[in-house]
C-alpha cells in the first residue's frame, strides 16, 4: 500500500471536520472520494498535505507523514491539485510549469518534461507565454494537472477536477488522467462531486458523509448500489 490512512481526524480550530477516516491507496491505483458539499472531501486532501491540524495515522510508503509541513510532504512525491486550481494567475503558463518542477535540479530533464506536458495538453503550448489567469477554466485545470506532473509525482491528489468545466472538456480531462495513470504509473486520489465520472475512472471508491466514510468498495459495486445511485447518480 502506497498510502495508508488510519483514524484520521481533522480540525479547523475547535471544529472537528473529519471523524476517524480509514482508507488506503495502492501503488499505481486510482481511488475516488465521493460525497456531497461539506462532506469533508477537500478537508481530507488538505489533511494529507499537512494543511490542516490532524490526529491519526497517515503513512506514505510506510513512513508517517502526519504533522509534517506541506512543502516537505510535497517533496516526497505527492502532488496536490487543489480546488480552485491554485494557478499562479499573474505568471505565464511556462512559469507555472517551471514552478511545478521547483524541487528538482535536473534542468535538461525538466525542459523535456515541459515538452511532454505540452504533448499531453497541446492547447497549453499555444498559450505558453500567456498569463495563466487569462486561460479558460478548462485550460487552467489542465495547467494545474500539468504543473502537478512536473513534480514527477508518485501520487496525485485531485480536488474536484471537473468543477466548473464544460462536459466535453471534462471527458477529455478524465481521458487524459486515465492515460497518465497507465503510461506514467501515477497513483491518483480523486475527490469529486460528479460521481458518474469518478466511478468510471477509479478502481476503488469511498463515500464520505459529514466527515465519516459510510461506504467503501470497488467502484463498479458502489456505482450499482441503490442508495448511491439515487442520491449521487440521479437515477
Amino acid at each position, binding site marked *: 500500500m502506497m498510502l495508508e490512512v488510519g483514524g484520521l481526524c481533522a480540525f479547523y480550530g475547535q471544529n472537528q471536520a473529519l471523524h476517524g477516516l480509514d482508507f488506503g491507496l495502492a501503488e499505481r491505483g486510482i481511488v475516488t472520494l465521493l460525497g456531497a458539499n461539506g462532506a469533508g472531501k477537500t478537508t481530507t486532501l488538505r489533511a494529507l498535505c499537512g494543511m490542516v491540524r490532524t490526529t491519526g495515522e497517515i503513512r506514505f510508503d510506510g513512513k508517517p507523514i502526519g504533522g509534517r509541513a506541506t512543502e516537505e510532504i510535497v517533496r516526497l512525491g505527492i502532488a*496536490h491539485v*487543489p480546488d480552485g486550481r*491554485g494557478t499562479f494567475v499573474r*505568471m505565464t503558463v511556462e512559469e507555472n510549469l517551471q514552478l511545478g518542477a*521547483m*524541487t528538482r535540479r535536473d534542468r535538461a530533464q525538466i525542459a523535456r518534461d515541459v515538452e511532454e506536458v505540452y504533448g499531453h495538453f497541446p492547447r497549453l503550448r499555444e498559450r505558453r507565454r500567456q498569463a495563466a489567469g487569462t486561460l479558460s477554466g478548462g485550460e487552467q485545470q489542465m495547467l494545474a494537472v500539468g*504543473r502537478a506532473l512536473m513534480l514527477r509525482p508518485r501520487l496525485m491528489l485531485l480536488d474536484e477536477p471537473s468543477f466548473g468545466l464544460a462536459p466535453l472538456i471534462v471527458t477529455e480531462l478524465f481521458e487524459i488522467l486515465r492515460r497518465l495513470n497507465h503510461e506514467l504509473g501515477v497513483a491518483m486520489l480523486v475527490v469529486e462531486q460528479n460521481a458518474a465520472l469518478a466511478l468510471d475512472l477509479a478502481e476503488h471508491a469511498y463515500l464520505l458523509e459529514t466527515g465519516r466514510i459510510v461506504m467503501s468498495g470497488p467502484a463498479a459495486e458502489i456505482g450499482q448500489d441503490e442508495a448511491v445511485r439515487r442520491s449521487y447518480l440521479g437515477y
Partner: protein
Amino acid sequence: MELLLQQVLAGLANGAIYALMALAVVMIYQAIDHLNFAQGEMATFSTFIAWQVIAWGQPYWLAFAIAVTVSFLGGIVIDRILFRPIHNAPILGQLVAFIALFSILNSVDGEIWNFTIKTFPTPFGREPLFGLRLISTHEAGMIGVTAVILGLLYLFFRGSRLGLAMRAAAANPDSARLVGIRVGWMIALGWGMSAAIGAVGGMLIAPVVFLEPNMMLGVLLYGFTGAVLGGLSSPGGAVAGGFAVGVIENLAGTFIPYFGRDLKLTIALVLITAVLLVRPSGVFGRTVVSRV
C-alpha cells in the same frame, strides 16, 4: 529654467533613495502583507556599522560590503526570531511589534553611537557633474546606484529560479507550498534583501543629511509615501512613486512661496492623499477584486 532643472534633478537624487526605501518596503509587504515600520531604523543601524568600520581605519568599500552583508543576515534573523513566531497574531499586534523594533533600534543607535551628527563619506565626490551646476557627482551616484540595484533585482526576479520561487511565494503562498517551495525561507530571504537594500539607501543618503540616529525618519516616511502612491502591489510603481515624491518634495519646497519650506512634508502628504482619492489603490496599484 536652470533652477527648475536643478531642483528636478536634486529631487530625482533624493527620490532615488526614497525609491530604494519604497522598494524595500514593498518587497516585505508583498511577502507578509505588512509595512515594515522599522525599515528606516534598520538602515540607520547598518549605516552606523559602516561608519564604525571606516572609523576603525578600513576602506570605504570594505565598510560598504560589511554593512550590506550584516544587514542581509540581520534581516533574516529578525524575520526568523521576531516575526515568524507571531505571524498568526492579529494584524495590529504585529504592527506593534514593528513599532517595538523601531524603538529598540533607535535607542540602541543612540546609546552606542550617541546623538551627535557625524559626517559620512561618499565614494563619488561632491563636485558638480561634468562641471555643470545641475547636479553633483554624489547625487548622480545616488541615481546611478539605484538604477544598478533596480536592474539587478529585475534580472534576479525575472530570470532566476530563486527569484521565481520568491515571486510565487509572495503571490500565492498556499500554491507555492504545494510545489514544494519553502515559503518561510522565501520570506526570510525577502527580509534579508530588503534590509540590504535599506542599508545601501542609508549609506547613500548619509553624506547628504548627516548621520545620526533619527536620520531615516523623514526618508522612510517619504519612502512609504512613494510606495503607497505607486501602489503597494507594484514594485515598479513603488520605485516610480519614490522618485515622484522626491521631485514633488523638492519642487514644493522651492517654488511654493512662503510656507514651502516649513510645510514641505505636509504639502507632499496632502498631494499624495489627493492622488489617493482619485486612485485609491495607488497610481499603479491593482484594485483588489474580492470574490464574495
